């Protein structure tokens, strides 16, 4: 997995809270970048490491909740842990429904915060691994010829070689050869695995579209 330390981004307009969180997260081994506002965070360059965002809800300017919606609209998947000085239940429900990892009230218990950040970072690690795997899969898919992609589509639908041969006007032997190529290029050991990989690619493509 990733070798660099995970990064915790802290956005809180209160200087001493910001510095305290910065020191706390560094003391447990994270890299930390702290910002006074969501604008500063949005403009910042983010390193390519697993990361999460510890976000104050109420700040002058755009609130943490608004910013969560903005990130979602931008397809930014960074996991969020909310901290707030005075939150209520509806606010917490809204945040969690919108995908926040945790919603903590200040003053928080240290362990709760560190647990929440650990979960958030783990989520991000998993997401990054899945994304990397999918990206690799797509690269492999890109190496298939047009004919091989056609064959893969039919195989994924569960059609037999004989049927595919008839549909495409090919001989059954040719279909078998194509299928062997597809299995090799896609790195699938079994037919079942090939079908699963095909689903992953098409699923992702649908989501993107």
């Amino acid at each position, binding site marked *: 997995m990733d070798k660099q330390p995970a990064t915790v981004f802290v956005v809180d307009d209160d200087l*001493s809270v910001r510095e*305290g*969180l910065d020191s706390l997260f560094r003391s447990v081994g994270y890299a930390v970048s702290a910002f006074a506002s969501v604008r500063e965070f949005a403009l910042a360059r983010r390193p390519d490491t697993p990361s999460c965002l510890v976000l104050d809800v109420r700040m*002058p300017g755009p609130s943490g909740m608004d910013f969560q919606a903005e990130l979602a609209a931008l397809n930014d998947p960074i996991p969020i842990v909310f901290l707030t000085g005075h939150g209520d239940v509806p606010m917490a429900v809204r945040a969690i429904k919108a995908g926040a990892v945790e919603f903590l009230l200040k003053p928080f218990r240290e362990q709760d915060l560190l647990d929440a950040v650990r979960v958030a970072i783990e989520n991000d690690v998993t997401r990054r691994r899945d994304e990397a795997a999918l990206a690799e899969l797509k690269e492999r898919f890109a190496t298939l010829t047009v004919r091989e992609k056609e064959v893969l589509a039919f195989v994924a639908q569960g059609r037999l070689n004989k049927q595919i041969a008839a549909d495409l006007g090919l001989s059954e032997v040719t279909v078998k050869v194509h299928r062997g190529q597809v299995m090799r290029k896609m790195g699938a050991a079994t037919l079942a695995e090939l079908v699963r990989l095909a689903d992953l690619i098409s699923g992702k493509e649908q989501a993107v579209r």
Partner: protein
Amino acid sequence: MRRDRERMRIERPWLWLGLIATVAAIFLADTFTSLEIAVAVLYVAVILISVRFDRPVVVVSFGAASALLTVLSYLLTPRGIQETGLANGALSLIAIGATTYLALRIEAAEARVRQTQAELAHMARVTAMGELTASIAHEVSQPLAGIVASGHAALRWLAATPPDAGEVRRALERVVADADRAGEVIGRVRNLVAKAPPSRDRLDLVALIEEVLALTRGELRRNHVTLQTDLADDLPRPLGDKVQLQQVVLNLVINAAEAMGGLETGPRDLLVGAASDGRTITVSVRDTGVSLSPAAIAQVFEAFHSTKPGGMGMGLAISRSIVEAHGGTIYAAANHPRGMVFGFTLPVAGTALDRQHG
């Protein structure tokens, strides 16, 4: 309102001097005019004016002194008919006695009014602080969050191998600073909620305003209000009661924040300003909430008149009486292009005194 101004209990050298000079003048006139002329009756005016010291003992002293001097004048006056002089003297003494009694009654009534007003103001202050509970909790929870984070960080830096002394020291410095900050918040709340007798000091208005803003920061944040200040740094230091004026600023700021809290769209900007033209100091609180109609503005400082749901309508009425007691005026106007400006002026120097003599 003159009575309000007298609420400021201060030593007033000019008033003392004036009254004693008047007493001396009456005594001399009474002594050197003939016994038929009852100049001593004029002591009555001195006794009535002495009510302004707001101290029964002063009224009684002037009454007693007047009576003694009347008798003394009678004995010293060389000319005139003795019987008339005796009758005049007796009438003067009765007048002085009756006036002293009435003056004491007036004094007591005024004291009751002052007390009631102080209690009302205190109640309004406590109510205002009640509205700020969430905000104050936030102001305290912020440094506490800092203490939790920095404290645990310090422990971890200490437990590291090797321990990082620099990090530990910085973390502990933050802990101390945060603890001080939380303590200051508590101190400000305590000052505003405490029942303190009226006082009169030279005030640093900028510090006074900033203390109030520190307490309302959470309330502003809750209402997503952006705060700007424009506080002149060379303001004269007017005489006044710090807690009372803080109460006025607090009221104006809370009102502004609430006026903007309900907005659907548009900016929520709060501008708190303080400036002086040398004669008066103006403190203004400008919001971008709803503008009131001129008819509503005319009523806004009246007691039991409220434009907010659940409002008692006391805040601005009490603010007005406080400002007027300081010799200033409170005002409201529509802000351009929208919102309201509420503010007050304070005379720069010696105000209440000047006006009483003027």
